[in-house]
């Protein structure tokens, strides 16, 4: 019984962590290439949730809707990088939330899906269907990003621009374009994560504050700018949040996360993947 309970906590933590991981790799990508700490990342996630909601109103399944957020948010990210980056990175969260509340209204919304309240049964463990699908899609998107970065010319150019912008430019790589690509891809990934989150989590203009700190913790935990590090960091946060409940009350759920975070920073200041993969 104790083993089954522990297994349920682990499974739940991994499912929750999968979406954290996808949220975090977008942030890590932007930091890794541009050295920009994008505090607006959570707000783009919120907008991704809303776009998925509007897709759902039009009859599109939210899982597909989450994927369909990628192209428009890539373009949005690219435009923001080209024209508005300074303004976006300079503004404060309250202002963006107020803008969103004016346009989208503060009324919370939710996408009603059958799989949000159903579970796959694996022995004694229940795996929530919405979270399982979201986890699987997060893995696929993270793998797709990894393949793009390691197996394509554009991906290699992106990594070169991240490693040494000056040397990359001597090799004919348009570093500015690479920054646009990184920002667009980072925003598209977090929007897709928002879309997946929207399959089981209500949407409201202030939703970003519930996740932005965890995203940053995941990125720093994994090693600033490391894509695999951010992914593992997200999974670790989900796991620790879940397992903390075995020992501590709910009020201290995130205490476990921050204890692990501080321990990792103390023992390995560069983060889990910092030495081997400091950049993308």
């Amino acid at each position, binding site marked *: 019984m104790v083993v089954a309970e522990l297994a349920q906590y682990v499974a739940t933590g991994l499912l929750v962590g999968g979406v954290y991981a996808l949220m975090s790799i977008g942030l890590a990508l932007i930091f890794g290439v541009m050295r920009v700490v994008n505090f607006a990342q959570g707000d783009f996630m919120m907008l991704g949730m809303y776009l998925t909601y509007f897709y759902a109103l039009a009859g599109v399944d939210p899982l597909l809707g989450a994927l369909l957020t990628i192209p428009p948010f890539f373009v949005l990210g690219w435009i923001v990088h080209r024209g508005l980056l300074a303004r976006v990175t300079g503004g404060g969260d309250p202002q963006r939330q107020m803008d969103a509340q004016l346009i989208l209204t503060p009324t*919370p919304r*939710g996408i009603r899906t059958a799989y949000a*309240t159903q579970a796959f049964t694996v022995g004694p463990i229940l795996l929530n269907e919405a979270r399982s699908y979201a986890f699987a899609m997060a893995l696929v998107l993270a793998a797709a990003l990894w393949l793009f970065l390691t197996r394509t010319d554009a991906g290699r150019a992106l990594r070169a621009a991240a490693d040494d912008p000056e040397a990359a430019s001597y090799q004919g790589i348009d570093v500015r374009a690479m920054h646009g690509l990184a920002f667009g891809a980072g925003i598209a990934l977090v929007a897709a994560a928002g879309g997946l989150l929207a399959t089981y989590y209500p949407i409201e203009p202030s939703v970003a504050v519930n996740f932005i700190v965890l995203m940053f913790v995941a990125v720093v935990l994994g090693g600033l700018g490391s894509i695999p590090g951010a992914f593992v960091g997200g999974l670790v946060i989900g796991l620790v*949040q879940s397992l903390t409940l075995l020992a501590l009350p709910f009020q201290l759920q995130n205490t476990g996360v921050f204890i692990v975070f501080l321990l990792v920073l103390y023992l390995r200041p560069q983060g889990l993947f910092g030495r081997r993969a400091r950049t993308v």
Partner: protein
Amino acid sequence: MTEVAERLQVPWLTLSYADSITERGFKYTFQTSPVSSVQAEQALELVTELAKKNNRPIKKAAIVGDNTAATVFFFKPLREKLLAAKGIELVVDEVWTPPLADATAIAQKLRATQPDIVFYGATNFPDSIQVLQKVKEFSVKAPIQGVGAWLVTPEYVKTLGKEMLDSIQTVVATHPMKGQEEIVKRFTQRTGEPFMTQDPLCTYGHVWLIKEAIEQAKSADPKAIRDALAKIDVTSGPAATSFYPNRIKFDERGRRVGATPLIVQWQGGEPFTVVPTAVATRPVAWHK
């Protein structure tokens, strides 16, 4: 806000349930809602009676909710004395600071302990939706008794669907009662909202109460209105009938004398007043 109102000597009418809001000796704060600690006692009395009538006596209870002020004051007396006094065992006591990362552990504990009632106070919408979805996913059958009007807003039925909400009930400071059909009709027509809830009804009552106070004070001066509110005793008209029982008189702390909560229950996608029966708009349907 009440501190600012006190400094500026402007009367402040609140629908807050928190005991602390009228425990500071303020002269300008008037609370029309029954306070949380009183609501807990009254709500427990009401639900144990209901359960008995339906041959499902309450032996085990769970407390699940966040640590916001009104919820804390509701849970505290339940946890410390009220449940024990009725011989009810507290089998789950889970309180968190919003936002809640995941509600699986709560649903697991409820499923494992099978309480006869869950006292539920998740005032943050995303947290509450997560808990209710998990309760359904884990097939937890216990009746849910909420704490506050946040549980009966139109967003719930849009997000969860009417089937999932059916028979979930909550204690509120006020809700449309028998005899208020006309104001509800006007409200829904004018706003496009599907039904009227505590907050607009309270505000409606408060506006009429200010009008009564101004007329009694024969002045629009804030201090004169405050003095009129301190002495007011109305038992009829739109102000009084917006609250239960239909009387507005404040004690020296600014609390409405005799303020009693109502129980509102989701039935067919709409929340109805079910207790007390004298003002109920639907009979209560105890959880199957």
